């Protein structure tokens, strides 16, 4: 079995998701999203059809956004660790706030390098 891609949750984002996601349907979507982010085949192919993982454009830092649920706009913010090649969960954003990247990053500035 292929080794899963490392996903680090230093800030208790998954615990936070468990608390704030509005329904079990969203929690199931989160599980699917995490499975995709950990899936080494997705990383090898560089295709993330569920989460649409993508870098935030126009900035030096390797900060990424990944959909939990495209329709409602719940998203994860992650940062890629170039040294250990692992993804670090940084935040979860609510549906209505998913376009406010700065608000999210600013509120958790100490988490981003």
């Amino acid at each position, binding site marked *: 079995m292929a080794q899963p891609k490392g996903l680090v949750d230093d800030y208790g984002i998954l615990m936070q998701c468990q608390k704030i996601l509005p329904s079990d349907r969203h929690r199931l979507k989160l599980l699917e999203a995490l499975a995709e982010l950990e899936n080494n085949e997705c*990383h090898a192919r*560089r295709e993330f059809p569920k989460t649409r*993982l993508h*870098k*935030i*454009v*126009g*900035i*030096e*830092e*390797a*900060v*990424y956004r990944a959909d939990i649920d495209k329709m409602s706009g719940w998203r994860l913010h992650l940062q*890629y660790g*170039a040294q250990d090649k692992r*993804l670090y969960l940084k935040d979860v954003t609510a549906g209505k706030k998913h*376009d*406010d*990247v*700065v608000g999210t*990053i*600013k509120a958790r*500035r100490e988490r*981003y390098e």
Partner: protein
Amino acid sequence: MPHTAEHSSPNGALSSRARSRGREADTPPFQVEETSSYKRDFERLGPGDRAQVRKRLNFLLPLFEGDRRAFFAHASRPVAPNLAGGLTSTLYILRATPRLRVLLAYDLDPLFETLTFTLLRVLSHDLLEKDFLKAAEAFHRTHGLDLKK
């Protein structure tokens, strides 16, 4: 493996290298994306200027991979856009011709191993700091980022 052939897009900039996703070299391949503003600015240029801009970009953009110091010797910005959240903007001005400047942003993506240049505008050489900041603000806002006042 050496770089393979370059292709020119209808608007004259490089489209992409036909190298497969950085497997054969230490540096990633690069892609060029043109915003509608850039396309509009480019279409307004005369044939001579278009050819010069195209030629200059074909020369300068590959420098980023091969000799970054040389690339930045041709790039400048009147002021670094001050992004909220302490993020670092990658917006720069390239000297395309003595009279024309190309506003661009680069994105080095370590996860997808890509390098993408986003061409934003073709502007006059006498653009002011406020013009640059206005363009920077518009660009970053489209990606959900704000400049600090």
